[in-house]
């Protein structure tokens, strides 16, 4: 039941053209070492599913900026101008959902439901082309569940069974995404022995995690860091 493995083993699962779901919100909670590995391996033609495309040089944003992504199912791409540029050029397909709807679609996939009924976006263009059902006289959109071939998450701590805890707002989409992968890889800042995590405080039970790898921690500068602001002026799309 020891799921601890290497980055290399994990990367074997992530191949050209695959559907990859990722945790994180504005880069925070994107798994840095896994994304580095995907970048270095040269994986391309990805379909991404996640909250946002982060910032050009941060987390999942790097893969988008480098043109490795064919399609993204997301809520927001505004903090990564290269995503917007590629969308305009037609090289990146973007499917937008309201953020809370996206979170519940991913969770629905993660808990084995077929989908959810939601009234957010009723009466707006979000409704167009969508199936609706009426429950108790109120109209709802049918929003199918989302899953992915591979899901990658960033945990503060993991144990060998794959039990996870997260770090403050680094939690965000991670516990949802962890459940929704057909194969889920957790990168942990710290791997602790079995029994060290308090059973009351485990956020993602290990049953949802297939592979745990040790992470090297965040390797980028945040947008609010001065150095990052400087570096960003030199950032180049593609690579």
């Amino acid at each position, binding site marked *: 039941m020891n799921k601890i493995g290497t980055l290399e083993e994990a990367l074997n699962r992530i191949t050209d053209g695959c559907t990859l779901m990722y945790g994180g919100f504005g880069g*925070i909670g994107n798994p840095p070492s896994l994304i580095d590995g995907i970048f270095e391996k040269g994986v391309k033609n990805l379909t991404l599913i996640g909250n946002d495309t982060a910032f050009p040089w941060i987390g999942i944003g790097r893969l988008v900026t480098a043109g490795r992504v064919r399609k993204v199912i997301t809520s*927001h*791409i*505004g903090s990564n101008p290269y995503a917007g540029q590629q969308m305009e050029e037609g090289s990146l397909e973007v499917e937008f959902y309201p953020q809370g709807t996206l979170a519940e679609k991913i969770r629905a996939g993660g808990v084995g439901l077929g989908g959810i009924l939601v*009234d957010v*976006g009723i009466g707006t*263009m979000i409704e167009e082309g969508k199936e609706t059902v009426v429950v108790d006289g109120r109209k709802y959109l049918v929003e199918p569940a989302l899953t992915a071939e591979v899901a990658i998450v960033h945990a503060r701590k993991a144990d060998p069974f794959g039990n996870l805890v997260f770090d403050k707002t680094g939690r965000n989409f991670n516990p949802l995404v962890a459940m929704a992968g057909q194969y889920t890889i957790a990168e942990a800042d710290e791997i602790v022995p079995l029994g060290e995590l308090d059973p009351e405080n485990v956020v993602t039970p290990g049953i949802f995690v297939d592979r745990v790898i040790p992470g090297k921690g965040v390797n980028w500068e*945040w947008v609010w860091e001065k150095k990052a602001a400087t570096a960003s002026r030199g950032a180049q799309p593609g690579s």
Partner: protein
Amino acid sequence: MGEESRDRIARRAARELKDGMVVNLGIGIPTRVADFIPEGVQVVFHAENGILGAGPTPEPGKEDGFLCNAGGYPVTIVEGASYCDSAIAFAMIRRGGIDMTVLGALEVSGRGDLANWIVPGKRAAGIGGAMELAQKAKKVVVLMNHVNRDGQSKIRKECELPLTARECVDLIITDMAVMEVTGEGLVLREVMAPYTVEEVVRYTEAELQIPDTVAYIGGDAP
């Protein structure tokens, strides 16, 4: 919009904060509302990335990259705060747990329709949490310029841009005025100096009702 005008709008919006409210502030000017919380008022700040009980910006050097608001900028937490995943953060919104949200806007109609996420033909940033907040918060306060760059009113009879949510806005605060969306239509409540009631009416495309008393902010009545 100038710095002073932004602050005035944010300060005015902060007067809508009542003790005990759970509040979500959008990105941009709405974020500044937190800097003007009235004396004696305690509110609970909610963030879509999973904080209930966000606190002020940390001192420089005390930032934590894993403790940020939905815009990705460092915050702190207050006593009684909790972290959650984004599904639960949005459960709080959909269940009506947010007493007030403060958002930016591209257009608002006199009925309170809100358009703030997409301009057809222009680069789309996405939706984010705006639809849930606009549709589900108990009170929706919009902060924006009264007119757009071409000098046209952003307060329209009908929104031309795709909507974020229908009939959701309760209060509009601009650089020129404060307007309330009521069952009887859009009502002018306050005028920001140095503008006059006549100027506000001229720059408001939607029908605007002028009650007997209109307050003046930031100056004497002209």
